[in-house]
């Protein structure tokens, strides 16, 4: 009988693993909490550093899943699991021979950083809001006019012990560069300022895009973390920071403030890990067996990881892990 692989999470990682497993002659079952496949990438407009439409990637994976007739259970939340079974919130149990945990990450809730006024003041947005607005073609205007000044704040919910998120979310730096360029393109008259602690351009083409943002788009990068945002009498937002490269305090008012929110571990990671006997890292993400040959393996036989369940990752890295996890599952099942 064909071996069944239970894949928890129907984002790009889960879909990509399922496609590889189906091609290897196995029977993947994708379990997705939402009503449709696609995960977080579904709500993203364009991808760094090439401005590739995110919809194309989601559509191609959905089509590949459909073309192979892969079993998909949408609207199903996994509450407990191990290598042989997944228990759903509705009481059903799905049986299988191995499992891939690909349930991704949670976006940091910017409202927790009250000092930035997200949800309190008009025209404070998160990077995810900007993507949604770019997708819908409804970018914010200020009293009907194009914004003249826009500030981006890096590291919101990353590298911040005050909100228990000590890790670097990695992708926000380049997302901030990308979104600054996108807003500059749509509002050519706007001055755009990116406030950062460090700029971490780790991927191919990232440093080049950062340079292009500086040289061609004239994006201003100010090294200093915004300490607070406050509304002005005319409905704008005043921000304060230290310009650490001059050693002077700095303040300005802006029409839009965009908070580059980080990736944090899912709230249900701990419960899922406990049910399967898995280990979590101090960050709350799942801990792989090691960071090298075992980076998609868990400490439990028959359970594998793909994508951002183990740490913040790019889409390219996530897709690579999904393929690697599928290969590891196939090798594991061959010997059984």
């Amino acid at each position, binding site marked *: 009988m064909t071996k069944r692989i239970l894949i928890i999470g129907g984002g790009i990682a889960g879909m990509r693993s399922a496609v590889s497993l189906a091609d290897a002659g196995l029977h993947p079952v994708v379990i997705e909490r939402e009503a449709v496949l696609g995960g977080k990438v579904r709500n993203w407009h364009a991808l760094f550093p090439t401005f590739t439409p995110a919809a194309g990637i989601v559509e191609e994976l959905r089509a590949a899943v459909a073309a192979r007739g892969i079993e998909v259970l949408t609207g199903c939340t996994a509450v407990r699991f191990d290598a042989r079974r997944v228990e759903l919130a509705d009481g059903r149990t799905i049986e299988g021979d191995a499992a891939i945990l690909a349930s991704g990450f949670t976006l940091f809730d910017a409202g927790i950083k009250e000092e930035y006024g997200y949800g309190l003041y008009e025209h404070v947005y998160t990077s995810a809001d900007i993507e949604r607005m770019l997708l819908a073609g409804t970018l914010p205007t200020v009293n009907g006019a194009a914004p003249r000044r826009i500030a981006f704040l890096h590291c919101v919910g990353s590298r911040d012990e005050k909100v228990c998120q000590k890790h670097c979310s990695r992708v926000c730096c380049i997302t901030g560069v990308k979104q600054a360029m996108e807003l500059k393109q749509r509002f050519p008259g706007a001055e755009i300022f990116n406030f950062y602690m460090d700029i971490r351009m780790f991927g191919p083409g990232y440093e080049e895009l950062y340079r292009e943002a500086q*040289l061609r788009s004239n994006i201003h990068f100010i090294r200093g973390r915004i300490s607070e945002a406050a509304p002005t009498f005319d409905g704008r937002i005043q921000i304060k920071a230290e*310009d650490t*490269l*001059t050693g*002077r*305090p*700095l303040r300005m008012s802006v029409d839009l403030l965009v908070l580059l929110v980080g990736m944090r571990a899912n709230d249900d990671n701990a419960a899922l890990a406990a049910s399967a006997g898995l280990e979590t890292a101090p960050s709350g993400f799942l801990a792989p067996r090691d960071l090298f040959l075992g980076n998609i393996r868990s400490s439990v036989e028959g359970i594998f990881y793909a994508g951002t369940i183990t740490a913040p990752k790019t889409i390219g890295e996530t897709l690579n892990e999904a393929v690697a996890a599928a290969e590891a599952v196939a090798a594991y099942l061959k010997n059984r």
Partner: protein
Amino acid sequence: MALDFGYGISKPRTIDLDRNEFYKGNAVLGKMPELQSCIGCGSCTATCTAGALTDFNFRRLHTLIRRGEFKGIYDEINKCMLCGKCRLTCPRGINTRGVVQLIKRNMGYLQPE
């Protein structure tokens, strides 16, 4: 005549980007947009001949000009001896010596080209 009580009101040290003017900084950036790509590494200041003997700090100076802060710039920029070592060391390939001359021109200390 005002009485001197021996104390006064300090001017705020804050860089206020709502009040500062950018046209002088933009005039420099217009000619040498690569200055915007400065990553603040400090190599220019570390190698600076003038900086070895005075508190001249080119990195800080051009950053302040780009923020629209000009107080004391005249005295500062004249400490540069135009030796050009900073240009040799800049990892972003910025013509730093050229930036000094552009700053001087745009501050009105040199005749326009």
